[in-house]
């Protein structure tokens, strides 16, 4: 399964080498021009040009993770988080560190030795460290360096009911959707971009948009969905098996209304179940893209994923398939009139 390969690839913001190479291998055929830029964005544009609009479809390929900041005298490693991670998910987890993928663990004090209400105090990242089994700084220095990235060591699991579990569905699910899209023909000029460094503030997307100068952009994401116990109303954001999530507003952008209405119409016309993102949460590559050049109409379409930014994220292949259907239908019907010239 392509999504499995993509989620298990390494690619924390700024270290997208492995995921970029995996995607390159997937899209390597003579129908596309494939190239990269200095930010690490990866582009694929169809060689054949049509008399039609240029539609950029993007998905960021980076993921959240850790970076080693210091090697302690006893050979353990201090770290900081890259991207937004709930530091409470780090305890009792496995990691791969640096280019050699050295295995390590983050352990915690045994429960037997906790004092007072220590058990009630959530663990902070700065109290934790990674243990790679070295007993001295000198030994550890042979294997890892400050600045090395540390990746969650997690498995891809096929759960019940077409549900799957892995790390980095945000946003390898978007990357997988684009790779699927590229295999078909549309009446528009499709410009695909796998962006870098979204998780630390959408750094790659702006330069990418200003290079491509598209007429409009569809941003594909794996977005949070919190349809779980103790969460109510709009705070659930979206539901698993509710179909593709279409954003009308987030913390940094408001969707182009004409574009938004068009997307929902297409969904209805094609009997594709969709949902509108509830609440005003999160931000993504749409912000720098929308504000690029003279302003670019954007729409964000996401696959709902539970527990994003953790090593155990969960999503449904049904939602993936519905999202793929919607985007293909969109690409077949987009034209100058919709985008408003």
């Amino acid at each position, binding site marked *: 399964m392509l999504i499995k390969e993509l989620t298990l690839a390494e690619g924390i913001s700024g270290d997208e080498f492995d995921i970029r190479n995996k995607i390159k291998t997937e899209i390597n055929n003579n129908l596309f021009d494939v190239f990269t830029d200095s930010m690490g964005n990866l582009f694929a544009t169809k060689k054949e040009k049509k008399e039609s609009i240029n539609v950029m479809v993007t998905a960021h390929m980076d993921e959240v993770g850790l970076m080693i900041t210091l090697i302690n005298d006893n050979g353990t490693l201090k770290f900081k988080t890259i991207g937004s991670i*709930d530091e409470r998910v780090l305890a009792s987890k496995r990691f791969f560190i640096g280019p050699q993928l050295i295995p390590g*663990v983050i352990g915690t004090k*045994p429960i037997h030795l906790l004092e007072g209400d220590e058990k*009630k105090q959530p663990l902070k990242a700065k109290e934790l460290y990674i243990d790679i089994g070295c007993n001295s700084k000198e030994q550890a220095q042979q294997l890892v360096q400050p600045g090395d990235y540390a990746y969650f060591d997690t498995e891809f699991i096929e759960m019940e009911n077409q549900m799957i579990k892995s790390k980095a569905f945000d946003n390898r699910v978007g990357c997988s959707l684009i790779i699927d899209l590229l295999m078909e023909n549309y009446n528009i000029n499709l410009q695909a971009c796998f962006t870098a460094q979204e998780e630390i503030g959408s750094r790659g997307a702006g330069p990418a948009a200003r290079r491509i100068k598209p007429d409009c952009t569809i941003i594909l994401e794996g977005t949070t969905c919190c349809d779980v116990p103790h969460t109510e109303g709009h705070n659930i954001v979206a539901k698993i098996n509710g179909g593709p999530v279409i954003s009308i507003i987030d913390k940094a952008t408001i969707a182009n209304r004409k574009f938004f209405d068009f997307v929902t119409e297409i969904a209805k016309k094609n009997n594709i179940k969709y949902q509108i993102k509830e609440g005003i949460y999160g931000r993504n590559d749409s912000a720098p893209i929308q504000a690029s050049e003279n302003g670019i109409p954007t729409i964000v379409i996401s696959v709902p994923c539970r527990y*994003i930014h953790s090593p155990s994220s969960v999503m449904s292949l049904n939602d993936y398939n519905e999202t793929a259907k919607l985007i293909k239908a969109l690409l077949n019907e987009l034209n100058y009139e919709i985008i408003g010239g």
Partner: protein
Amino acid sequence: MKDNLKTLSLFSAPPGREDFAANLISEIFSKYCDSVTVDNFNNVCGIKKTGIENSKKIALYAHMDEIALMVTDIDNHGFISFISIGGVDPRILLSQEVIIHGKREVYGVIGTKPPHLQIDNESKEIIIEKLYIDIGMTREQINGIIRVGDYITFKGKWIELQNNIVSSKSLDNRAGVTVLIEVMKELSEDSLDSQIIFNATTQEEVGLRGATINAYTVEPDLAIVVDAGFGDMSGLDKDETFILGKGPAIGIGPNMHPVLSKELINYAKQNNIPYQIDVEPGNTGTEAWTIQISKIGVPVLLISIPLRYMHTTVETISLDDVIASAKLISGFIRHIQGRLEELMCL
């Protein structure tokens, strides 16, 4: 040795359902013991016989159960609530992978709210009653497969770190069970004066229950308990932890037989087997505590394998310590043959 430890650690044996693993352990024990039985409490008991009538009984103990969770409720959307069985720190639970032992095994993850949705003044305390397991099934689908009261175990992974150090779930106390297997292998060709009884015991994590039953039945003349001891890590005092790779910790204090523990330390010293001292002023929190006062009283020795991050899914030990523990115990058993009566006298 490594393969046994890996297989054993990844097996599920929650307190009360050690029968999940009892067959596997019986099978391994059968290779090296003259007889193997499983009692009413799922304790697996392998005997190396002597052929001598009324020979002394040296019993080795390592518990095979592990900390676990249990289903308390299933909500209308199929999310599963749970409680802990044994000492589980709620702070290790977020984003953890588990196996629910229902009619069949079902995989699940413990959910966590993504940082994007957390409100600034929201309490960050992790309360076990508020956590839930996501198995991706609806309430209707779950009917007949998972019930309240079903066991949940952690899904771990075996990984090898530097310096012969390994990390996995349940090394507390599959490392101890592995030591027992190494001792029975080592002694399998010996003809000894005393019977050796190898016990993989149950329900230790909920109160030393399996060993209590077993000691009553077995009536050992000497019991050697092998368990995990706290490994060195920053944030813990040096006097309550043991350094990984520096050998097993030999317990001294009122829970241990004073003459025999001294003899064990001398044996290690004279034979250049690395060891550390585990000073225990009272309750050792191990099976040694219950076995010592079984029936008319049993002399007890305690050997602890240094283990970091106890009761997490990344328990970490040095394989060198497993090997040294087995060497120490098998050598010591040979060393005290014919002298047990004399050493036991106070």
